[in-house]
């Protein structure tokens, strides 16, 4: 869905999404990194009807970027900067709580 502009520069940051490794850039938010890695179609499924969604506003107001980060669910991925080794799990339906 998105690709890096050639003029842009930045350090690589490695993380996993649903167990698979992706490479992000320093300064990316989790949502931006996922979109750049082609993980936006779909990004998640809603808890209401299970329909496919992806981030809409990228500024923390639409709540369509909800994702589980390092075990904590329902986080707005567009507000969380990527960090080396982050474990991201996509949300499908009602959020599963880690016991």
């Amino acid at each position, binding site marked *: 869905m998105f690709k890096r502009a050639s003029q842009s520069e930045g350090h690589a940051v490695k993380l996993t999404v649903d167990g698979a490794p992706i490479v992000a850039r320093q300064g990316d938010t989790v949502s931006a990194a996922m979109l750049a890695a082609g993980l936006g179609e779909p990004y998640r499924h809603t*808890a*209401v009807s299970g329909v496919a969604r992806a981030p809409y506003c990228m500024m923390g107001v639409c709540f369509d970027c909800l994702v589980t980060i390092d*075990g*904590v*669910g*329902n986080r707005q991925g567009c507000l969380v900067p990527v960090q080396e080794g982050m474990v991201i799990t996509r949300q499908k339906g*009602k*959020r*599963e*709580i*880690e*016991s």
Partner: protein
Amino acid sequence: MNQTADVIIVGGGIHGCSTALYLALRGYKPLLIEKDYAGRHSSGVNAGGVRQLMRHVAEIPLSIRSMDIWDKIQDLVEDDCGFDSHGQVLVAENNDELAIMRERVDDLNLRGFTHEELIDAQELRRLVPAVAETCPGGVVSRRDGAANPAQTTTAFRRMAEKRGARIIEGVAVTDVKRAGRDWQVTAGDETYTAPILVNAAGAWAGKFAAMLGEPVPLEIVAPMLMITSRVPAFIKPVVILRGRKLSFKQFANGIVMIGGGYLGRAYPETNETDLDWTKLKDSARTVWELFPVMREATIVRAWAGIEAKMPDDIPVLGKSLKHEGLYHQFGFSLHGFQLGPGTGYTMAELIATGHTNISLDAFRPDRFTMHYQETRQ
């Protein structure tokens, strides 16, 4: 312009709307005047508990009468009101608490009430698997449950109108006075006259009672509630922990409602309330300690309605002791929702026939006056 009605009801909460419906069913033409819209306040924003459990003994007959109506609510108001019944459970956290509960259940049984059942640790865990292992038991009221308060109040309002009641919303009653044998009520630019007046004005009822020469020590409060994001189903009945000020309910769609009667601040003149987050923190702490499975839940919404309570936590209900043709129906002290259908039935019966089979003596408007307390020694 003067307008007449059989009965004027001030206040469109569950109690006012219920009375309006039952009067209409008896062939009366009541007029209900609500300053905002039906269910705007307490009745529309409470936790929705349909509860017989843990009531003051004086309320129990009324609560049972109301519960019978809840069981057939769909037929009465052509709406299921979102009512589901998985029971309500009072959890004992230690043996001392359980002992107190045992005493109560024994006492109720002696009085002929069997709706509260003492349960042991095994039955408690069966009903509420998520509760801590150390809890020795509790009390269950199996017929209890919860409903959607706004949906319920709106349904009563709609059916009352369908059956012949006239409902005026968005206009506040500003003055009430005697005119011969009638009551004259001013609301907006109009004056309405009726031989019978019902004061069902919730947090504003104290004001009217005082205006009518029958003041009561009504306190206006703002009980707070929190709602969480959807979590996988882990609890079916409504759960109460008395010692911890916690009530807990999970809806079919997975969201959890946390209550318990912590109070915020009410501003009745402007219909506003403020939340007290220091108290909600205590509530969150309690949930965090008792239900580890909830620890990562997020609070998505919190609010507080405007409610009123009496010092003895039971309502003012019944005939005025000062004026002919005046009835009171208010002060439900944070637990009036379940009683709504029953109080409306009772009020209509009282107005139509002059009496009702339930004793309303404990709910007298004068029970806090010096005169009453002296003469009752």
